[in-house]
C-alpha cells in the first residue's frame, strides 16, 4: 500500500511533515470548572475538569498534594463501526492512566493539598491520535479551570511508513501496521513526559520519528498558547478591562 505518493503527498493530501488541521474551543461544558474541545483533523475530544475540590473518597486524600484523577471514555458513535463498549476496559484504563500521569507532571499539585482534581475526557470522534488529542484537550481544560501548572503538556504522534517519517497519523495510516510513536512534552521545559511506541523500529530511524513527533508537540503548544491568549483577551474584553 502506498501511503506517500511519489509526489510526496499522503492519502489525505498532507505532506509527510504536516499536521492535520487543529481546532480548539474553550469552555464547552458550562457546568465544569474548566473544559475544552480539541480537534486534530477528524479526531475530536472533549475534556472537562472538576476541581480542585474536596476529596470525595477520604481514604485517597493526600496531605501534601492534590489527588489527580482521570477518566477516558469513547462515545459509541466515535468509531466507524458502532460498538457498545463496556466502560473501564483495559484500553481506556490504560489511556486514563497515561493522561493522568502526563497531567500530574505539569500540575503544581503541592499547592493544593487535600484536594481533588478530576479530568474527564470524552472521545466524540476517533480518527487516529486520540491519546494525543485527549492530552491536548486536558491541558486546555486545566488551563481554563485555572489550575496552576508549571508548563503546558502537549502531545502528538508520528509514524514511519513507506520508509518516510510521517507526522500525526490518521486512522488509515495508524492501521497500516507501522510503528506509532506518541510523544508528550512539557513545551517550555523541553522535557518529554510521555513516550510510547508499538512495533519495531531501528534505533536511528526511531530518533528521527521521535524528533518529528516532538516538533509536532511544539507546534501544538504554540497553537494552544494562541488559543489561550485569545481566550484571555476575550475575557478581558468582557470584563471591560
Amino acid at each position, binding site marked *: 500500500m502506498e501511503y506517500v*505518493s*511519489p*509526489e510526496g*503527498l499522503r*492519502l*489525505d*493530501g*498532507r*505532506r509527510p*511533515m*504536516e*499536521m*492535520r*488541521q*487543529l481546532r480548539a474551543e474553550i469552555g464547552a461544558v458550562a457546568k465544569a470548572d474548566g473544559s475544552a474541545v480539541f480537534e486534530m*483533523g*477528524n479526531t475530536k475530544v472533549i475534556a472537562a475538569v472538576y476541581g480542585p475540590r474536596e476529596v470525595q473518597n477520604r481514604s485517597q486524600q493526600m496531605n501534601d498534594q492534590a489527588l489527580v484523577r482521570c477518566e477516558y471514555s469513547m462515545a459509541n458513535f466515535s468509531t*466507524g*463501526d458502532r460498538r457498545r463498549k463496556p466502560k473501564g476496559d483495559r484500553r481506556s484504563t490504560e489511556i486514563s492512566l497515561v493522561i493522568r500521569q502526563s497531567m500530574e507532571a505539569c500540575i503544581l499539585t503541592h499547592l493544593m493539598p487535600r484536594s481533588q482534581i478530576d479530568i474527564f475526557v470524552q472521545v466524540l470522534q476517533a*480518527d487516529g491520535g486520540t491519546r494525543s488529542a485527549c492530552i491536548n484537550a486536558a491541558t486546555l481544560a486545566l488551563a481554563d479551570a485555572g489550575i496552576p501548572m508549571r508548563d503546558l503538556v502537549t502531545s502528538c504522534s508520528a509514524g514511519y511508513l513507506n*520508509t518516510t517519517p510521517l507526522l500525526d497519523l*490518521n486512522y*488509515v495510516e495508524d492501521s497500516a501496521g507501522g510503528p506509532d510513536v506518541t510523544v508528550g512534552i512539557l513545551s517550555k521545559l523541553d522535557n518529554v513526559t510521555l513516550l510510547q511506541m508499538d512495533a*519495531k*523500529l*531501528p*534505533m536511528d*530511524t526511531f530518533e528521527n520519528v521521535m524528533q518529528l513527533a516532538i*516538533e*509536532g508537540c511544539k*507546534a501544538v503548544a504554540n497553537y494552544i498558547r494562541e488559543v489561550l491568549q485569545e481566550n484571555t483577551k476575550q475575557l478581558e474584553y468582557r470584563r471591560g478591562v
Partner: protein
Amino acid sequence: MLQSKSFVRKTKGGKVLKVVREHYLRDDIYCGASFCKACDSSTARLSSTAATILIVDTNVVLNQIDLLENPAIDDVVVLSVVLEEVKNKNLGVYNRVRALCSNSMRKFFVFSNEYHKDTYVKAMAGESPNDRNDRGNGGSAIRVAAQWYQNHLGQGTHVLLITNDKENKRKATEEGIFAETVESYVKSLGLPGLLDLLVHPSSEDVGMEDVEDLRPLKRKVIYTEHKPMSEITSGLHRGIYHQGKLRVNRYNPFEAYVGSESIGDEIIVYGRANMNRAFDGDIVAVELLPQDQRHEKSLSIADEEDEEEEDVHLAPSSADAAPRVTNLVQGSAGDINPLSSRPSGRVVGIIKRNWHSYCGSLEPMPMPAGNGGVAHALFVSKDRRIPKIRIQTRQLGNLLDKRIIVAVDSWDCLSRYPSGHYVRTIGEIGDRDTESEVVLIENDIDARPFSSQVLACLPPLPWSVSSPDLANPIRQDLRHLCVFSVDPPDIADVTNFVHPGTPLDDEAAQRGTSVYLVERRIDMLPKPLTEDICSLRADVERLAFSVIWEMTPEAEIISTRYTKSVIKSCAALSYVEAQARMDDSRLMDQVTTDLRNMNALAKMMRLRRIARGALTLASAEVKFQIDTETHDPLDIGMYQIREANQMVEELMLAANVSVAEKILKHFPLCSLLRRHPSPTKEILEPLLRTAAAVGIDLDVTSSKALADSLDRAVGDDPYFNKLIRILVTRCMTQAVYFCSGDLSPPEFFHYGLAAALYTHFTSPIRRYADVIVHRLLAASLGIYKLPDIFQDRAQLTSISDNLNYRHRNAQMASRASVELHTVIYFRKRPTDTEARIVKIRSNGFIVFVPKYGIEGPVYLMARGEKGGGEWLVDEQQQKVKKIDGSISYGVLQTVRIHMEVVEPQPNRPKLQLTLDQGHVA
C-alpha cells in the same frame, strides 16, 4: 510546520460502514512546466520550449501505453486522478506509466489535481449514470484540470486534452478546451510508423474513420459471453464459480489449469472454447463441468483447431520446466486413470487480465493488394501458451521476416483470435542476436547496461584493500593462511560494496541473479565488482566473508565461526586444474595436499549426507564450445562432473547449511531460506508407471527410500541408472526462496538435500539471495545493523517472490538459449545418433538424446492418422507395436535417430528427429 490552507471532507459510503476521510487541498502543487513563472520549477518536468502540453485521460493511458512509451510523445501531464484509476484497473500499466513519469529522459509530469485547491472536483450527489461513467474516466476532473492548465499557462501554450471518449471530447469542446482523439493527434504528428502502435478503439469511442471490419457479415459468436462482474461475485460467493489464476500448459496450449482455493484442487480447462479467451496468468472465474461432459471434452481437443506440432526442445531438468501430463494417451486408452477424477471446468469470466506484450512473428501471408497499405495479419507468439493475435499494420512487407513485439488490446466473443497492435521490431528471424534478445524479453530479463547512478555506487578503481579495512575490528586478517579457490569466485564480501538502499542495491535486487546464456552472461552486478573487486584472484588481497570450521578427521564439525576477513589467495584454480592436481600423484605441494585432505573430508560429508537420504540426482546439462569469432557453436557435449566439482559442492552445501542455522537462530521471522518441497504423488505417478514398465520398483515414500531404490535401479547398460536419475530429477519441483516468517519450521525442509534448513550464501556476486543472507549473517554477528527492509515482512516476501521469479526466468532463458544454439549447431550438421525413448505416444514416442541433452517427438506415422493405422499402443507395458507384431518400441529402449534442421515454412527453421529405420537397437 505548514498548515493546509483549507480542507473539504470527502465522504465515501462504503457498504454500510460510513467512512469519513479528510482531504486537504493545497496551494503548493505546481504545474511542472519549467517556463512557468508562477510555480516553483525545481520539480518541473515539462520541457522549457513545450508549445503543446498533452493531458491524457484514463483510457488513453490504459490502452495506448505503448504509444506513450514512444519517445515521439512527450510533454505529457498525467493527473493523479488518472493514475489512481489506472492503478485500480491495471497495475502493470500503472507501473509502466509511473516509470515514464520518473524517467529523466522523458517529459512526463504528475499533477496531483485532486489535492490542488483549484482543480479539486467533488464527487457530486445525484449525477446521472452517464456522468458517472464519465467520471470513471478522469471525466469532469480532467476537464477542470485541462482548463486550469490553459488558464495558468496562458495563450502561449497549447493545452490539448487527449481522449477517445466521445462524450468527454464533446463536453471539453463545449467548455472551450482543445481536445483531440489519440488517432487524430498521432496523425497530426506526421509519423506514420506511430499509427501501428495505436490500439483500435471499441465501438463506444470515437470511431476511426478508415478502419473497416474484415468480415463484417460473417461475424458469428465463437465464444460464450463473459458473465457480468456482479454475477461472478455472487457466483463465487455461492460457491458455483471458482476463482484462480489460469496456467496454460507450456507444451499444450489447449490445456490449462486453474488452482482453486475454494475446492482445494486444480481445475483442468480443456480447449480454447472452455478457456473462453482467458490468457495464461489471468485471474478467472471457472464453472465446473458436469462429470459426463468431462471425458468427451478431453477427446475433442485435437479437432478443435489445427493442432500445433510439438517441437524438439531441451530435456527438462525439473518438474517446472517439464511438460505437464497430457491426457491424449490415457483418453484413448479409455481405462480409469487417476486424472479423470480431477475436476474440469470452463471459464465464465475474467476477473483480472494478465495481458502484456509478446515476442513472436507474423504468420506468413501474401501481401494484400490495395487497402491503403493497411494489412491485417496474424501474429504467432514465441510463447506457445499465447494464442495467435490479430494485428493491423502499414508495414507488412517490412515485418514478415522479423521478430516483433505485439501487445494485446481486446478479445471479443465474435472473433477467434484476440486483437492487438504492433509495438516494435527486434530484428530478423533466425538471426542469433535477435533470437537471443527474444529469449531475454520473453523471460523478462533486463540486459541493459548499468545506469550511471548504479555505476556511481562503485568504489573508485583501481581498488585495493586499504588500511582502514585492515584496521577494522570486525574484519579478521587471514592473509597468513593458505587460502585458495576452486572455480567459483565465491564468498567475496560483496555487501561491503553493495549497500542497502543504493541504486546499485536496487538494481541487483531487481535483477535477482546473473543470467547465463550460451554466448553471453548478463551480470547482476557491474563488471568491476564481478571481475575485479569481488573476484578472489590469486596473489591479490581481497575482502571475504568466511565460514571457518574446525573438523575432526572424520569430518565431524567441532565448531563453526563466521567472520568478515581479508585473504590473499595463493591459487585460483578451475575445476579441471584442481582435479588434475589431485590426480597427479607427483605433486606434493601445500595446495595439492590441502586439496586432497579437503576432498577426503568432503567425501565423508557426502556419504553422511547420502545416508541421511539426500538424493543423488542427475541432469543432462550440455556444454557448447563457441567460436570466439562468430559466436556460433562449434561443438556440444555433456557437461562432465568431476570429483573436484563434488568437493566444492559439498563444502558449499555445508557452508549454506551452517549459515542458514545461524541466521534463523537470530532472526526467526525474517530470514531468507531456501526450501524444496517433496514431490507430490501426482507428479511422480507417470514416472512410477514408466519404471514399473521396465520392471523397476521405485519407493517414493521418503527421499531416503527413493535414494535407496535409485541405487538399486541398475539395468542392462551403464547409462540406465543415470537415465532413471535424470527422469526422477525432472519430476522434482524447483527449490524456492522464502521468508522464514511466512511458513512453519516443518515446511522449511529441503527434500533434495535432506536438510532441515538451507539457504544460499556462497555466491553473492551472482545471486541477490546471497547478498541478503550476507546482510543477515553480518547482523547476526552484531557487526552491522539489519537494514530497515527486514522489518517489513510483506516486503521481504515480495523480495523472495521476485527472486524465485528471476531464478526461474534465468533458468528458462538459459534453456532457451541452449535450444537456440542447438538449432544453430545442427543447421549445418545433420547428425545420426543414439536416443532413448522416454514416453510412448499414440502416434510415436518422445525420445531423449543424451549426447545433446535434448528431447523431442519421433513420429511413426504421418500426422493426422494418429491412434489408428498399423500401430498399437500398450499403455500397461508402455510399448507401441506394429499390428503385425513385427516391430515394437518400449519405454527406455535405445533407438538410432537422425537429426536435421528443416524449414517447413520460410524463416521458421526447426529441428526434426526421425527414426533411423535400419538401426533399431
